[in-house]
């Protein structure tokens, strides 16, 4: 059983996203450890990419800051190894297909296994192309997380049937970023998934407030929050840890007993 399943055993899951290396690899390490302590159920760690086409401005900025700080895939693997000496929180990498492909898919996935990474989210690797990475994920026991979007419609059954770990439900159209209103499409997606696969569904894209998280976890198994946290990191830089921790605690408390 993959460690990711443990993310959904303590009430509704709160899944924070941060970009590794923003503002530095040391701060990222502290953030992971302390977010886990504050109640984060799974941590989504972004491996920065020069051209993140699924990201809005906030996370684009984090990618630029991390890359100009000199972070590389190898340094991120080393950091996860250090974290794993102290903490068992489930960790999923979020990155684009090119950094994985250029590193060598098998080497990348093997290193994930060795470092203690549990899952992989690759937004530009849709169902049709997952053969690029999937055989190695199966071989090394890493969950390749499937995404579905409001436009997926007739594709949801096909994707859900083969999904592992959890399903990342994109709440609304467009790229990542804080939104005021999230539509009801998310609920329909989750309900459809559950008819074909009893797999946890977490809602991402646009979630930032406890009220939104509560609304989403009425039907979903967890929420993923990226831009709202990355904004805090951007604002406070290397002083960000206590502010992020406070935010994570508030969000987890809001949904814990849902």
């Amino acid at each position: 059983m993959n460690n990711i399943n443990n993310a959904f055993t303590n009430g509704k899951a709160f899944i924070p996203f941060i970009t590794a290396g923003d503002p530095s690899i040391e701060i990222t390490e502290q953030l992971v450890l302390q977010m886990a302590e504050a109640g984060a159920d799974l941590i989504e760690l972004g491996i920065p990419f020069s051209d993140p086409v699924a990201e809005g401005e906030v996370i684009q900025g984090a990618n630029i800051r991390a890359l100009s700080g000199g972070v590389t895939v190898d340094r991120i693997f080393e950091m996860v190894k250090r974290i794993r000496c102290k903490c068992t929180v489930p960790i999923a990498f979020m990155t684009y297909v090119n950094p994985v492909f250029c590193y060598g898919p098998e080497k990348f996935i093997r290193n994930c296994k060795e470092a203690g990474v549990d899952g992989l989210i690759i937004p530009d690797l849709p169902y049709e192309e997952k053969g690029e990475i999937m055989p190695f994920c199966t071989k090394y026991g890493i969950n390749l997380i499937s995404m579905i979007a409001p436009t997926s419609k007739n594709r949801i059954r096909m994707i859900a049937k083969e999904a592992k770990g959890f399903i990342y439900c994109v709440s609304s159209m467009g790229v990542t970023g804080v939104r005021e209103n999230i539509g009801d499409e998310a609920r329909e997606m989750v309900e459809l998934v559950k008819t074909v696969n009893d797999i946890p569904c977490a809602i991402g894209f646009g979630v930032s407030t406890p009220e939104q998280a509560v609304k989403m976890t009425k039907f979903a198994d967890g929420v993923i929050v990226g831009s709202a946290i990355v904004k805090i990191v951007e604002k406070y830089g290397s002083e960000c840890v206590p502010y992020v921790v406070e935010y994570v605690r508030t969000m987890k408390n809001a949904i814990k007993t849902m």
Partner: protein
Amino acid sequence: MVKGRFGIHGGQYIPETLMNAVIELEEAYNRLKDDAEFKEELNSLLMNYAGRPSPLYYAKKMTQDLGGAKVYLKREDLNHTGSHKINNVLGQVLLAKYMGKTRVIAETGAGQHGVATATAAALMGMECEIFMGKEDTDRQALNVFRMKLLGAKVHVVTSGTQTLKDAVNETLREWSRRADDTHYVLGSVMGPHPFPTIVRDFQKVIGCEVRKQILEMEGRLPDALVACVGGGSNAIGLFYDFIEDRDIRLIGCEAAGHGIDTDKNAATITTGTVGIFHGMKSYFCQDEYGQIAPVYSISAGLDYPGVGPEHAYLHDTGRAEYVAVTDNEAVEAFEYLSRIEGIIPAIESAHAVAYARKLAPTMGKEQILVVGLSGRGDKDVAAIARYRGVDIYE
């Protein structure tokens, strides 16, 4: 061949949000490409609006000067809007209209594709928004105004390197926000399937015309075809009909910028490695960790870190050759063609002219060389003047 693949290249590496949009596009294209009404409407637009067929012009003075092969220029610069881009755009915007879309969006580098898209949108009554890198809006200010004149909204892209690749990123982002009523008019033979195929099909008219024209004029096929390659749409358009004619050399000219031994170039096949970006597997300029490299060329239209997957495949199989041409060689060719034939080529096309100047003298006088003159150079005059130290601004 697997659907949407050119050897190992191509594919559909895009966010799930866009998958149904490209599937819908593929279905619509397959339905309409052989539809009599669609074909007739497109052919009529190409003939009566864009001015096709474009002439195949025998460059007599250039031939004499170079002292080798007979040089012919395929005059895509004479098309309406001044480049080959109109071929693809009329096809795609018409396709979008048949699909019931009311809005088109597009990226542009030099501005030629943006101008062509804005033109087709005006013609067919569609809303139009163009994404263009800030560096390009600065060096191609006239084209920005031209697009606005045609009724398009121009978004200045300030993310990343602020050039063509970033304009593609932003257009993809915009498409993922709003795909229901919007078609993304991709400007080159790149991106996720079905774009490389659709754009090639709309551009192959270039080579099909060349075959007919050269047979009429010379009674035989050419020995070599030369075209510039950024994403590679005019080159694939020229080459495609000749791929099966194995003894005809197909030569793509990439932008070497300051030189392929410097980091200031955009010669993707010459200096790049296989990667996956902008929806396709192909060659890219990138670092060992797969971060896309900032590229450089004097030509905004060739200033792109990737190349269309079919070119990557033609390179892998050895069917086509790819060479690199520096800024300086291109500028010299720009001036050369202006003086010797009275034709000011686009700085992109000047890369092909530059290589033709090297190649023609090595060929026999009985041989024939066709150069794809993909666009006209009016848009580049101020930039070339600046390159030569003459400080004029548009």
